[in-house]
């Protein structure tokens, strides 16, 4: 196996010249970037630019046509890839939360560690209780997803991913379906995570958040990375005309 020849000096996620097509439509046209452990990366760009596809590829929810994605030393583009091993390392949070509607909040959090990691129930329960507190939902832990607000559901979804002790968290426009007030409660949760040193890759439209939190920002358009840089230079000194146009509309 190609597992874990990874050392902390290497990028924890390494994307190299990734191409991805859906039929005729080429969505990713050679994307490359590296993420070091503990970094927070924001990917921004107009709709249809391939942002979501990109992070779905990191989790092997979509396969790629060519190129390489290495997560923690695991090659995602390897046909013999142990997806389970990969997904243990990578947590993913979706725009529409995608909680299991027939399970309570705490059961949602407990399922994967018990079924996938085969941890004991007591152990998982203790961990889940701690996670519920961490996302500030102690009073809602026995509620079903249908009884929770969007922001609360999204925080449960984050806790559910964290219960697998991932090394990298992927956030796919996690606040896009929320109203402005609840956006904040979710962002605060992500902010806490980042402060603890979690490696985060976010696809987001929250520019203020990106500016404040990101170590590095990538702007994608039509399947390529047009411009990137740390927030200070990215927002102040964008050079590419497409990036400038996008930023002028959004800021």
């Amino acid at each position, binding site marked *: 196996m190609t597992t874990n020849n990874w050392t902390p000096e290497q990028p924890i996620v390494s994307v190299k010249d990734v191409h991805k097509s859906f039929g005729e439509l080429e969505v990713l046209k050679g994307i490359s970037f590296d993420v070091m452990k503990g970094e927070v990366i924001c990917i921004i760009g107009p709709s249809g630019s391939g942002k979501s596809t990109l992070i779905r590829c990191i989790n092997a929810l979509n396969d790629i046509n060519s190129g390489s994605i290495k997560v923690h030393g695991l090659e995602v583009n390897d046909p013999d890839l142990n997806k*389970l091993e990969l*997904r*243990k390392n990578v947590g*993913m949070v*979706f725009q*529409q939360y995608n909680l299991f*509607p027939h399970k309570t909040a705490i059961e949602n959090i407990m399922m*994967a560690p018990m079924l996938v990691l085969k941890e004991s129930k007591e152990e998982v329960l203790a961990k889940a209780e701690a996670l519920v507190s961490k996302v500030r939902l102690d009073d809602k832990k026995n509620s079903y997803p249908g009884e929770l607000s969007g922001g609360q559901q999204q925080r449960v979804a984050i806790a559910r991913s964290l219960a697998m002790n991932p090394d990298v968290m992927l956030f796919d426009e996690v606040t896009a379906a929320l109203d402005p007030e609840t956006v904040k409660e979710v962002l605060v949760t992500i902010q806490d995570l980042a402060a603890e040193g979690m490696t985060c890759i976010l696809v987001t439209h929250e520019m203020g958040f990106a500016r404040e939190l990101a170590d590095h920002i990538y702007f994608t358009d039509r399947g390529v990375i047009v411009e990137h840089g740390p927030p200070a230079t990215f927002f102040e000194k964008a050079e590419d005309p497409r990036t400038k146009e996008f930023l002028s509309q959004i800021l």
Partner: protein
Amino acid sequence: MPEFISIFFLELYKNDPKWNFIFFYDSSQADRVIEGFWMTLELAVICVILSVVIGVVGAWMQNQPNKILRLLVQGYIQFFRNTPPLIQLLFFYFALGQFTPTYSPDGWLEIPIISNVGWAIISLSFFAGAFNVEIFRSGIEAVPESTKEAAESLGFSHFQTYRYIVLPLAFRVSLPALNNNLVNLVKTTTQAMAIAVPELLYQMVSIYNDYSTAMNASMLLLFVVYITLVAILVFGIHSWERSVRIPGYGA
């Protein structure tokens, strides 16, 4: 039978010969009714269980990658859903019945290993099962792709995703349609009369063929028994539906 009931119905018959509830005062007719009732109940219970099993297995087969398997299930559904159950009964008993092996307990008699009751159970179960396959399939298809993806991204295996996420949700979606089909099945058991299965309708028709004055009373009893049987079934499924209802989910 308590004596006052016998006396009451005997008096009723004497006063009004159109209402001869013969089975309430003639114990040999009462035995025929009871026998018929048990046979109907046996048919109903066994066919309901078998048809649900056929439905689950068929829906599972339809979700397999094997094309031949799927084609087989599709052919089965088309045949049993698009032909009248009465013809199926006659076909099974008279056509297939000729080719089933026989045994001889005394060296003279030749008894087919599948009796008419056996054929009725097989035929009715496959008839209702064809509908159940479609009912369960639509339930499985109603589970959003994104919910399955969430399970996958947490490292669930294909089997675990089905066992813990897809099936519990699909099952809840399927219950109302299943309810309808099982009600139909219970009523369709009366067609087993065509191959001389001594169920309730067969027995009641026999009674009023022997005692023509008992016709009205026999019909009335038939209605009452079937309404009660179906009501019990519907009550059962409804309370089952309520017990698995998810707060805040669906309508």
